[in-house]
């Protein structure tokens, strides 16, 4: 026992040293981003890596020259609504594919997965036309509708449902619970970890989505954060202090969501059902 411990120790020490190094490398861009948001643009370009005194100036310039507050709220609304609707639709589909499984549905699933290979750029123009004619430009519905049902999330829910015990479903049916009741009262609570992981994936997807919102949001008031970030860099001269502050703020919701759901996220990705 003692010998074994001694043998393990250098390996553990090495592992920790290695992981610390990787953690530093991963954290560096975030630290730099946060520090840069307190500095003047010219100091950032010169590579200053320390707290500066320009945070308040960057802050007031960002909020006065750019629609920071409205872009943030738009992004947040789109991401929250988009995530909730999408989780509902995709989990229901994934549940259906698994619980009412038969050969035809498996084939349908294969076709669905093929749709992941169609690049968005190839459907963008017809999609724009449809949305323009349906007067959905500049609306939350217009932004979230194309990504409400994604083959990836349906597949994700179906795969994770493989471990969902069918005996519970049958027992619930005997007890007279409706099919939708089984989904809502039993499946959803049991699959909480999967929902958390899917929520993070979908939230990040909608939050960071650029191309589709860019082309359908033609009004300033509807603009989202990623679009605003690009607009900061689109002039002849970029103020990196303002840019870094805006990027820092735009990272926060995803960071908060991830850290509060971290434990569930990991177990959801691993696909465990307790």
């Amino acid at each position: 026992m003692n010998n074994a411990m001694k043998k393990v120790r250098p390996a553990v020490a090495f592992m920790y040293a290695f992981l610390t190094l990787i953690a530093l490398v991963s954290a560096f861009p975030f630290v730099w981003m946060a520090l840069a948001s307190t500095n003047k643009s010219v100091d950032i370009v010169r590579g200053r890596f320390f707290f500066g005194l320009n945070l308040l100036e960057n802050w007031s310039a960002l909020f006065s020259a750019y629609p920071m507050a409205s872009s943030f709220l738009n992004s947040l609304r789109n991401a929250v609504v988009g995530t909730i609707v999408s989780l509902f639709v995709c989990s229901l589909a994934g549940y259906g594919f698994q619980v009412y499984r038969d050969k035809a549905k498996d084939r349908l699933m294969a076709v669905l997965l093929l749709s992941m290979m169609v690049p968005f750029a190839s459907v963008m123009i017809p999609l724009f036309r449809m949305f323009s004619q349906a007067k959905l430009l500049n609306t939350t519905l217009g932004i979230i509708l194309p990504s409400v049902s994604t083959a990836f999330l349906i597949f994700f829910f179906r795969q994770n449902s493989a471990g969902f015990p069918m005996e519970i479903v049958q027992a619930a049916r005997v007890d007279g619970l409706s099919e939708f009741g089984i989904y809502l009262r039993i499946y959803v609570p049991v699959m909480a970890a999967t929902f958390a992981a899917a929520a993070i994936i979908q939230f990040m997807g909608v939050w960071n989505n650029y191309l589709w919102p860019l082309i359908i949001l033609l009004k300033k008031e509807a603009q989202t954060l990623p679009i605003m970030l690009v607009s900061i860099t689109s002039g002849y001269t970029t103020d990196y202090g303002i840019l870094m502050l805006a990027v820092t703020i735009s990272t926060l919701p995803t960071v908060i969501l991830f850290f509060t759901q971290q434990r569930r996220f990991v177990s959801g990705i691993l696909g465990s059902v307790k």
Partner: protein
Amino acid sequence: MMKKGSFLGLALALGAVLVMTACSKQEAAAPAAATAVSDAPVTLTVWCWDPNFNVYAMNEAAKIYQREKPNVTVNVLDITDIEQKITTALSAGEMADLPDIVLNQDNSIQRFVQTYPDAYLPLNGKVDLSKFAEFKLDVGVYEGKNYGVPFDNGATATFLRRDIVEQAGFQVSDFNDITWERFIELGQVVKRETGVAMVSTVAGSSDFIMLMLQSAGKWFFDDEGKVTIKDNPAVVEAIKTYKALVDSGVLLQAADWNAYIATLNNGTTASTIQGCWIIGSITPATDQAGKWAVVNTPRFANVDSVNYSSQGGSGWMVFSSSKHPDIAMDLLNKTFAGSTELYETILPSSGAIGTWLPAADSPVYSEPHAFFGGQKIYEDLVDYASKVPRVKYGVFNYEARDVVGRAAAAVLQGASIDAALDEAQKYLEFQIAE
């Protein structure tokens, strides 16, 4: 049955909600009837992209115009990635949500007009275009009609660190009216004496080659739009010169745009040769105040060319979907094509140098600039702009820049110029034929 029924009901309810939302939006977005009465309130929408530069300039123009036409409101929007948005809307044939006026990069005005010929209105007879620098007007001409009102000036210059070249034993004036060969000779001395690279650029960008070509009045296409890359003496000379700049160690290649700006702010380069809009990125380094100077752009020694060129710049265009095209054109005519006051207002606060030549007579343009050691740089830059040779960028300008940029990179890595340009020519012809 009940179970399936409730499930189906839910799905239907969800669908109904979506449809109802769609319908209510449809009613709200119904366009108001257009009126032709001149005193009725009119709102024009304008798309551009830089709050401190063109958005600001258009807002100032709107203020001037409103003194004469108080019924006109101009809604200036700072729009991201305008070209992508417009391309999608025009490809889909949905113009209802496009603005009345849009600012377009000079590089792609002809491309848009040729690809979507009915989407833009010709300005001839509505806007007085006679007083702009000729090369700026040419970028907006398609089939003999003008589609662009020139806005900002892309005239190039050599922005030079006075202190560094003086430390190497030169005067600023030694860099004026010179050839690229001379520039390289001087640069080698500067590098030897001070350890600082003479000039910097973004690695892999074709900016240098473009500005060299325009200084010779040549581009990648002839008048009929045929590709002329491989037997074009100006292209050959530009690539040779670019290679010489790199091989001599005079040119510092920065990894990306930010690193390039850092070479200016950090003093790791003695100059930059760029469109005059680069001033906005030079002047924030306040500790370098008084140390900079402006001279004109080097020219070729062996190919007919001048010490003037252009890089970047943009122009205003009017969409045919505009409900008030005459008012939109009148706005442009009375401000960007007719108001010295506008150019006097926007120059000091945004550095937006116009190409409307009468503005250069304004005293504001002859103010000495302290950051550039008291030099009257605006007067000089407008003078440069008036001498830039005219070229036709053409429809496939972006594609041409890409293939020539790749050819230049291949030459830097040892490929022969003839072979690289031959391949570039074939590749571009193939792309155009597609």
